[in-house]
C-alpha cells in the first residue's frame, strides 16, 4: 500500500499538473481567507499562497525548478495581464488627463525617492556594493528591474527577490501608510502604490478601488521608464 502511494507520488511529482494545481489551490486558500477577513491588507493572498507553497516544497524536498514546470503556466499569464491593464487605464483616462501635472511631478519625485531611500538605508547599514546596486531598481516591475540591475552591475536574481519583497511590503502595509499621511484621494493613493510596489501593489489597489487601480497601473509603467532613465544617470553622478 505504502509502496503504491509512493509510486503515485513519484509519478505525479514529475508532471507539470501538480505544480499548477498546487499553485491554484494555495491561491484559492489565500483568497478565501482574504475575503473572509473582508480584504484586510494584512491577509494578502500572494503572501499566504507563497508561504503555503514554500512550506510544501521544503517538506516534500521538491526543487523549485520542478515546481516551476507547472507554475510557469500561471507565470506566463503575467504578460497578457499587463497588456490588459490598458483597459482600466483607458476607462479612467479622463482622470489622468486632468491630473497630468501632478502625475508627472509625483512620478519624478517618487522614482528618485524609491531609488535613493533604498540605496541610502542599505548603505548606512553597511550593505555590500553588489547588494546596493541590486537594490537600486527594487520598486520597478521585475523584468525592467532585472535589466537595470544587470546594466549597472548588480545581481539580477537578487534584484528579483528584492522586487517581490518590496511589492508584498507595499501591498500589505501600504493602506496603513497612506492613512497615516492622511491622503484620501484615490488618484494619489494609486500613484503611490504603483510607484512603490509595482504590480503586486497594483493588484491590491484594484481590490480597493478602480480609480486607484488605474492610476497604480499607470504609475507602474511610467516608473519603469523613469527608473530605467534615472538610475544610470545617478550612477554617473555618484561616481
Amino acid at each position, binding site marked *: 500500500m505504502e509502496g503504491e502511494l509512493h509510486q503515485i507520488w513519484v509519478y505525479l511529482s514529475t508532471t507539470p499538473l501538480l505544480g499548477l494545481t498546487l499553485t491554484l489551490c494555495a491561491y484559492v486558500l489565500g483568497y478565501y481567507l482574504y475575503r473572509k477577513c473582508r480584504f484586510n491588507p494584512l491577509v494578502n493572498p500572494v503572501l499566504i499562497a507563497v508561504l503555503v507553497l514554500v512550506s510544501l516544497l521544503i517538506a516534500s524536498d521538491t526543487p523549485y525548478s520542478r515546481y516551476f514546470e507547472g507554475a510557469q503556466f500561471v507565470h506566463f499569464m*503575467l504578460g497578457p495581464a499587463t497588456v490588459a491593464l490598458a483597459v482600466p487605464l483607458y476607462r479612467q483616462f479622463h482622470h489622468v488627463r486632468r491630473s497630468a501635472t501632478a502625475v508627472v511631478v509625483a512620478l519624478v519625485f517618487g522614482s528618485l525617492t524609491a531609488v535613493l531611500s533604498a540605496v541610502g538605508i542599505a548603505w548606512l547599514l553597511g550593505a555590500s556594493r553588489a547588494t546596493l546596486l541590486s537594490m537600486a531598481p527594487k520598486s520597478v516591475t521585475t523584468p525592467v528591474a532585472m535589466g537595470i540591475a544587470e546594466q549597472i552591475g548588480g545581481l539580477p536574481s537578487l534584484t528579483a527577490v528584492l522586487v517581490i519583497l518590496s511589492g508584498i511590503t507595499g501591498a500589505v502595509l501600504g493602506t496603513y501608510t497612506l492613512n497615516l499621511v492622511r491622503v484620501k484621494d484615490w488618484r494619489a493613493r494609486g500613484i*503611490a502604490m504603483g510607484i512603490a510596489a509595482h504590480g503586486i501593489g497594483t493588484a491590491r489597489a484594484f481590490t480597493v478601488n478602480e480609480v486607484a487601480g488605474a492610476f497604480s497601473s499607470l504609475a507602474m509603467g511610467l516608473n519603469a521608464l523613469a527608473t530605467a532613465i534615472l538610475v544610470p544617470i545617478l550612477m554617473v553622478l555618484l561616481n
Partner: protein
Amino acid sequence: MIESLTLLLVCQLAGEAIARASGVPFPGPVIGMAILFIGLMIRGSVPEPLQHTTRSILDHLSLLFVPAGVGVMIYLPLVADEWLPIASAIIIGTLVTMAATAWVMNLFLKPSGDSGEQPEKPK
C-alpha cells in the same frame, strides 16, 4: 472571450517584437499595454467582451505573482548574510516612498468631485 485573449496576446507579441527590434531594454508586455491603449483611444470605446475578459484576469492579478514569489525561496541565502540592511531598506524604503509620493501628488492635485474623499479604512 477567445477573441479578447487573442487580442491581448497579439498586443504582447507586437510589444516583444518592437522591444527586440529597437534594442530598448523594456519589457514587451508594457509596450503591448501602450499599443492596446492607443488602439482603444482610436476606437473610442472598450468592446464589451474585452471589458469582461480583462476584468476577470485583473480580478485575480495577485495569483500571477505567486510562482515568482515562491522563487524567492531559492535566493533567500543571498539575502541571509545581509538581512538587516536588506530588510530595513525594503520595508522603510518602500513605505517612505509611498508616503512621500502620495503626499506630493496630493499637493499638486486639484480637488476632483468623484475620485476620493472617502478614506479607505484598514478593514
